[in-house]
């Protein structure tokens, strides 16, 4: 007969293994650079994982979006990538986030980028707030700048 503590440990280990596998599988496209294939749900999970190694591919995804315009990476993917990078990145990702806040065509993405920048690198946002405000026409993004 299997003892209770053993059964509980086995079950917990199985669940943890399943979660780790699904996490790896969901971030595979992101790690491999197949950004168009990464779903918003996967990007959300990447952010929740807090895995610092995902910061580089997330940054690359956002850079590809800026480089290619609207065609490859959707607004929804970009929003989730910005949120995920805000959670997994550090102050050194501030410059990439500032570029998104300045250049992305979607006001929603810019608004989230400001929030993420406030989290990643508050001094950089403080230094750039004036320039961002003077270049920004969207009331939503302006409100975000005023809030952060």
């Amino acid at each position, binding site marked *: 007969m299997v003892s209770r503590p053993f059964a509980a440990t086995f079950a917990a280990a199985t669940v943890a293994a399943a979660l780790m596998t699904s996490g790896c599988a969901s971030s595979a496209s992101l790690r491999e650079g197949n950004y168009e294939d990464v779903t918003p749900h996967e990007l959300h999970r990447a952010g929740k994982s807090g895995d610092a190694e995902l910061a580089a591919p997330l940054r690359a995804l956002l850079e590809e979006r800026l480089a290619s315009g609207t065609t490859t990476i959707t607004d929804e993917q970009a929003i989730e990538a910005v*949120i995920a990078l805000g959670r997994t990145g550090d102050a050194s990702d501030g410059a990439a986030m500032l570029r998104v806040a300045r250049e992305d065509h979607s006001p929603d993405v810019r608004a989230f980028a400001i929030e993420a920048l406030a989290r990643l690198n508050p001094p950089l946002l403080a230094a750039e707030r004036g320039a961002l405000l003077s270049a920004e026409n969207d009331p*939503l993004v302006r409100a975000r700048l005023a809030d952060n």
Partner: protein
Amino acid sequence: MSLRLLLLLSAGILMTFAPARAQESTDDAPADDLIMALDDAIFTNEDAPILEALKAILQAVNAEPDSYALNIAAAKGYLARADLLRVDRQTGKVDKAREKAMRAQQALWGEKGAEHAEKAKRLATTKQEKSEAYRLCGECTVHRIDGPLSGMRYGPTAKSDIEFAVSQDSTNWQARRAQGLMFLNNPPINGGDLDKAVETFALCAKNDEQHADVHHAFLAQAWMKLKRPERAKLEVQKSLLKNPANRLANNIKARLQENKQW
């Protein structure tokens, strides 16, 4: 009861109703003005102005019981009152005892609104008119659900009315929003699906500028249910930019401020 007392009572009843009837016959405010006043009142997200506008509309409906537009407006007025109660019950700070009373009141407004919407269904002549009448009937009927039994009774009717409304006019964004509310508020076993709710409200917000504050507020509520406060926050901001008085957006904003998280 003596004859004198009976006469006095009859006279009293006549005196009570006479001014109202006189006012009805002389009140020739065009229906459009009354409907516009109701829309303005609904935009305030306050019960008192909605009640005021609804009273005027009910008086006009009494004078013109077969008016499609006035019956639609009456149903809208009751629905708006019931909606406000639901918003406060779901997202405001309401104690248990008051919540129960509000729920009962909500069911009553739903019932009264459904009566006018049922009438509008019969008076509707075009697909668009039918769509709006069925949408209102479905939404008012949803408010009548205050437990599992009434859910079994009214749930399927409400659902079929709202689905019919969308089938009659796929650009009736209020009907699409009503569908989104079913995804938002129903448990999964009854067709609830938060991802579909987000998708539906986003589509409505994109296509229906007139009610954008409402769509964004529901989108925020859906994100909150998905435990995504950072996404809810943006939708709250969008809703309040369109209408600073939006009750649902303000309630969610207050919750977000209480529980700061990213």
